[in-house]
């Protein structure tokens, strides 16, 4: 297989992962103008919750019991159930942490300077990181089983686990659903109105507080889903959120803060450039993401899909 094809596949897989971890961050920024550093902790919480919940599912033999219950030929049911447990962990994290953070802290900060909000979410990130250590300790957790459940496929001389296809599919589905909601539904139009002008939207009778509440909860859920989907590929341990938020932030900035298509394009760009660096010039790997960021920001200081901002008088 040509190296170029390997770069393309590796790049797209990495891009899918990047998009999944970055989409919640850009959604929250787009609607609420909050650069949520605590997104990294939501990612960690998702990974830990999935490792605990799905880890329990596997260690207690529920997977094998489901396979045995439905008999040979129906393993798919047990596989789907396993991924369902992971998704459930992400949803639970989103449903608990999202409302708690939004109602408990952020709503008192609305209208304050963006920098203040960054500091607030950064403080929250530090608190949550320590909380994770208190709850789960510092020993790493493993959830490797789901990575191999779907088997693998060969392209030329390379083998890839089908789990990578799942990541790709999830990224496409999340992107498509969010795009559809924004463009085609009443709720999407309300969201766009709030994005455009919060005060004017409130004056039109839109419950901005509710929009913020729902957006933050969905964003938290997406962050946790990123963690849950990553858990089978890594060793879940303290500090994974810090690495991730930096990358997610880079992707969101390259794409243009708050832009969904921007995040998608940036993820693909970064994914491909990084894969090319690894294959052709491994010593540039560390630098590749920031090289893309620097070039894009020199040409377009507000990112690829930045919109013209109307100055309010």
């Amino acid at each position: 297989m040509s190296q170029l094809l390997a770069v393309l596949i590796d790049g797209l897989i990495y891009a899918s992962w990047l998009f999944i971890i970055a989409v919640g961050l850009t959604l929250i920024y787009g609607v609420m103008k909050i650069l949520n550093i605590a997104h990294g902790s939501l990612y960690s919480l998702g990974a830990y919750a999935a490792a605990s919940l799905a880890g329990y599912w596997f260690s207690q033999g529920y997977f094998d019991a489901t396979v045995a219950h439905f008999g040979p030929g129906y393993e798919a049911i047990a596989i789907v159930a396993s991924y369902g447990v992971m998704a459930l962990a992400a949803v639970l994290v989103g449903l608990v942490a999202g409302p708690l953070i939004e109602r408990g802290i952020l709503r008192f900060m609305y209208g304050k300077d963006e920098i203040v909000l960054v500091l607030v979410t950064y403080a929250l990130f530090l608190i949550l990181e320590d909380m994770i250590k208190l709850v789960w300790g510092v020993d790493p957790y493993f959830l490797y089983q789901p990575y191999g459940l779907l088997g693998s496929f060969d392209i030329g001389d390379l083998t890839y686990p089908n789990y990578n296809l799942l990541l790709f599919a999830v990224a496409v589905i999340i992107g498509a659903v969010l795009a559809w909601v924004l463009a085609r539904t009443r709720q999407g139009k309300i969201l766009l109105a709030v994005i455009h002008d919060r005060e004017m939207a409130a004056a039109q009778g839109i419950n901005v507080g509710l929009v913020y509440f729902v957006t933050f909860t969905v964003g938290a859920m997406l962050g946790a889903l990123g963690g849950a989907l990553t858990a089978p590929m890594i060793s879940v341990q303290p500090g994974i959120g810090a690495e991730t938020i930096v990358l997610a932030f880079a992707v969101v900035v390259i794409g243009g803060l708050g832009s969904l298509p921007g995040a998608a394009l940036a993820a693909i760009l970064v994914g491909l450039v990084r894969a090319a660096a690894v294959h052709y010039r491994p010593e540039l790997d560390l630098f590749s993401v920031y090289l893309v960021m620097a070039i894009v920001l020199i040409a377009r200081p507000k990112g690829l899909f930045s919109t013209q901002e109307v100055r309010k008088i």
Partner: protein
Amino acid sequence: MRPLRALSRFTALALATVALAVPAAPALAQDSIRIGLVTFLSGPAAGPFGVPARLAAEAIVESLNAGKAPSPYNAKGFGGSPIELVVIDEAGGATKQVAEFRNLISRQNVDFVVGYISSGDCLAIAPVAEELKRLTVLFDCGTPRVFEEASYKYVFRTRAHATMDAVAGARYLLEQRPDLGAYAGINQNYAWGHDSWADWTAVMSVLKPEAKVTTSQMPKFGAGQYGAEISALMQSGPEVIHSSLWGGDLEAFMLQATPRGLFKRSGLVLVAGEPNLHRLVGNVPDGTIVGARGPHGVFAPKSTLNDWLRQIYQAKAGYAPNYPAYSVAQAFLGLKAAYEKARLEKVQKAIPMGANRNVKEEMEKAYGRPTTEEVIAAFEGLTFDGPSGKVMMKLGKGHQAVQGTAYGMTRTVGGEVRLENIKYYPVEQVQPPEGVNSLDWIKGGLKPGKW
């Protein structure tokens, strides 16, 4: 007003109590020897290295204080004085650690410091220990630069440095695969990864100059995603992959590479893999070559001291000790041996004291605590027994330990990763002699020194 007045009276009383109690604390603590223990309690190095080191240190101190350690370490604490630990988290980088170190000396008033897993922290702390004149034992960090680029009076390292990882690893690999034609590397993109790969390629170019490097992957520390690196390794077709990945990065790499069949095509050498082995059941291929920078952990030969460490660690942690536990054990036992030797020498020197006029004063001096300088004099060049065998302080003008090392191959049996085909390498085969820089020694053909 009344409740307020009562409250202020209570506050005044409380403050007075605290004020009285504060000066009393050092007086109470005078009998014990305070040791600052610095190890990772958070961050990626906590799980595989920092926490096992802390658990081992606590178990050792409890056992030493109870006088339950085997001979020659059966005296309680250090020479009869109980040991008190002050534990500090190593996370946060070298600048923070320098501040923490100063704090340990000036505010916590520790007598000795035992610590540091990160080479960056060791390099930063050594000159500060020298400046503050406090005996500091580096217990785990690997860089040979500490004593090859500088000379210290107050700093010791009771564990052999990292040169042996590459030297013994390459010797072992070439014994298993004498016809090796091509190899690759995957190491983290920071000092440790670069040094490890530089040592490895230097050793290979001496021992097997015709072997080619197919690719050298340098992912970011904590990268988490290794898909492209695994593809690049697979496509470059090496017979063996060298890796100094550790902790979570190593585990993530193994979890992602195993299902892709990378290790069906290429063998693997993990120079720092020992602490993670028990967690990688099902995700480490049989035949992986693993080392532990010294005959530590599963490599440790049977002895009374080894049995003691395994027993107290197992009781504390619930699982067998890995190499950081052995490193910290060597630090405490080395320090104890030096302290007690200094004490004994002090008493022996004072024996012909009948001629002295003030006998009481002379007795107090002779049986008092040895000074830091006296402990240093006893520590320099000391040979002592550790749970993994003899440790000789023979490099760095008697401040750097040397030890032989061991390598072995993994085999998973009944849900447990075992190391088989273990081979021990004596000091002269894996360590440069005194006064020779590691890289120069490697490039000069690895000539055995005299020990």
